[in-house]
């Protein structure tokens, strides 16, 4: 058998295709194809009509997104300019300090002095409050006494 196969000549092999198809295949095929084509056409039309239906909704959504983006950028621009203003006033204060004080040490000393003054003022305010509380002097009486004192001094 193997030896016989070695002498197979291509030109001697039948050119008829060695395949079969199920019975009535070609008779039934045109109808099947027509149905498939109509289905494909219907699907395409449905797809197109869906696009047509959704088109206004998409347009509206796109418009809202556009407005939202515009608002977002506008807010960003405004807050940026606010930040710029803040940083500008900080810069001005810095320049003022730099004009007033020749060195950084001097500037720190001045700030410390200012803080001490503030503390002293706060202490004085505390003393006044204690005095008013201890002698049970109400705010209205204090105002009256001050007004009277002011009148006396003006009469003099």
């Amino acid at each position, binding site marked *: 058998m193997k030896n016989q*196969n*070695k002498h*197979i000549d*291509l030109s001697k*092999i*039948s*050119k008829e*295709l*060695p*395949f*079969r*198809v*199920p019975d009535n*295949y*070609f008779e039934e*095929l*045109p109808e*099947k*194809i*027509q149905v*498939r*084509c109509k289905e*494909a*056409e219907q699907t*395409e039309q449905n797809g197109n009509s869906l696009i047509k239906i959704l088109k206004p909704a998409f347009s509206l959504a796109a418009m809202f997104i556009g407005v939202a983006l515009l608002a977002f950028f506008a807010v960003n621009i405004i807050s940026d300019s606010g930040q710029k203003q803040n940083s500008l006033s900080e810069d001005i204060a810095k320049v003022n300090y730099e004009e007033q004080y020749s060195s950084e040490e001097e500037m720190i000393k001045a700030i410390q002095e200012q803080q001490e003054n503030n503390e002293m003022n706060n202490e004085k305010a505390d003393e006044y409050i204690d005095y008013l509380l201890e002698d049970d002097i109400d705010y209205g009486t204090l105002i009256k006494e001050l007004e009277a004192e002011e009148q006396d001094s003006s009469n003099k």
Partner: protein
Amino acid sequence: MADYSDKELLQMFKAEDTKDFAFNVIIKNYQERLYWHIRKIVINHEDADDVLQNTFVKIWKGLHRFREDSKLFTWLYRIATNESLTFLKQKKRRYFVSFVDVENQLKNTLESDNYFSGDEIQMKLQKAILTLPEKQRLVFNMKYFDEMKYEDMSEILETSIGALKASYHHAVKKIENYLKNN
């Protein structure tokens, strides 16, 4: 059924009231030739049936754009060839994942095919054809079984006549070697 020329069928297809009729005639005129062309590429009947139906759906969708600067038959063959090759590519991609050789799978299909009606030598020839590279396989089938003209093949496969002749020559040599050694 009356005989219509391709030109008449195309004109009828363009008119809405005769479109379905014309397409039905086109199917009847070409279904067998296209089926056998596809079957030789994909081997299995079920696959050939699927590819053929897809081919006709594509033809239905695209026929109104067909310009008559080429023959209708070569245009139909080109669509059928592209559909078959796309099908095989998808199959290869599927089998590549599972590490199975598609050519071997096609050979197995051939052996287990209920619709194979050939003898042992014809089976051997089909197996030999499956050892060819895809393009050579196409050229060999179209020339050997369909006895198609190189001019038409050139139009369908978009390849020069010289390249097709060389391809067929190589394919015949390989098949003869296969038949001698297996």
